[in-house]
């Protein structure tokens, strides 16, 4: 087999490069362990408390479809889906109501999360006992629920939601509206 053919490629990484790569990986894990504690919650007001009964009443009274996202500041996947929710709100916040419920969290950390990801324009509530997702039959975070006007549950997405799924379910809600 001639030199250079895919079957005879020489080793790509020398021992020195491998050592540097391992050192870089170790540094990454170290920085993860010493990661930032979050952004100060300046400019974000205290989140109003809620529970399942109060949230059910809010959903029933809503004349717009509602995207209800259950999150927590300590939840890594929630940090990753926050930018999607912000973009979705920017695009269809005038037709769909976006509600965030911070569960099993503390006020300062939850407000810091909202400040860090620019979610100040979304409607947020504080549910330290996790009563809202519990009442909706969900455990853990994140969860995203899609409600038609009047509070009829259309779709429940458990776990991190991606852009396509979020866009599809919002389009479904708006399609139902006619």
């Amino acid at each position, binding site marked *: *087999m*001639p*030199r*250079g*053919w*895919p*079957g*005879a*490629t*020489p080793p*790509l990484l020398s021992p020195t490069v491998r050592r540097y790569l391992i050192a870089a990986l170790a540094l*990454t*894990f170290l*920085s*993860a362990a010493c*990661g*930032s504690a979050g952004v100060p919650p300046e400019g974000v007001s205290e989140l109003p408390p809620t529970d399942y009964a109060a949230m059910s009443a809010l959903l029933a009274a809503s004349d717009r479809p509602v995207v209800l996202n259950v999150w927590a500041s300590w939840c*890594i*996947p929630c*940090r*990753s*889906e*926050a*930018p*999607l929710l*912000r*973009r*979705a709100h*920017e*695009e269809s916040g005038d037709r769909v109501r976006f509600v965030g419920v911070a569960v099993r969290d503390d006020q300062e950390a939850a407000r810091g999360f909202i400040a*860090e*990801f*620019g979610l100040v324009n979304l409607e947020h509530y504080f549910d330290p006992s996790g009563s809202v997702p519990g009442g909706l039959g969900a455990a853990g975070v994140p969860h995203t629920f899609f409600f038609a006007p009047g509070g009829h549950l*259309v*779709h429940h997405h*458990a*776990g*991190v939601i*991606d*852009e*396509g*799924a*979020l*866009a*599809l379910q919002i*389009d*479904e809600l708006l*399609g*139902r509206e006619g």
Partner: protein
Amino acid sequence: MEFTLLGAVAVAVVTFGVTLWFEAGRTNPAGSSRRLGDAALAAALSGLLAGRLAAMVAGGNDPLAHPADIVVVRAGVDTGFAALAALAVLALYARHNLWRTLDCLAPAALAGLAAWHLSGLFRGAWLGTSSSLPWAVAQEGSTVTRHPVEVYAALGLLLGALALHLWKRRTPLPGIVGAAALVVASGVRLGTEPLRLGLGSGPDWWYAAGAALGMLLLGWRLTRPQSKPST
């Protein structure tokens, strides 16, 4: 926990591997599958990392403050940066015989991509914009019928993979099959993008750039004076 994304990755990787295995000894050199698989794995992992980092930065999530978030690939991977990084790593890995390596990988890469798009069927992520065409499909509990956009993409990529496999049998000049694969992959994505639902403006220009680059490479390789194949 749900593992549909992991399942989709597994389906794509298996399809890629089976295609490489099928082509070994037919249109690829016998015994080349392992090295080609290694090159593709290095390229795919690098692309995933670069794409995830780009998506985090674009979304306002600082990778230095939250490095553990990098592994949450479900939350988004920037396909443009991912493709660039994957191609760069592949070029580095296969630098001694880049064109032949690209030719060897091309049909398998398209088949793997087709499997990835088709896996949207079990991930619940295969429907696009609303449509009244006879084959449009409604999601469970809905009356809105939609384009099965990921099926369109998978069919386009599968046809591309088959065409390139047949073309490779005629042993064209090195690099032509690889360049054609770039045109097919970018073109299929560009063509189906208007039927996908997304949040805000899509990365269409990345796909247009990929198709243009593929066509430039194809033109360059086709008009080059013929030299002896390196095998």
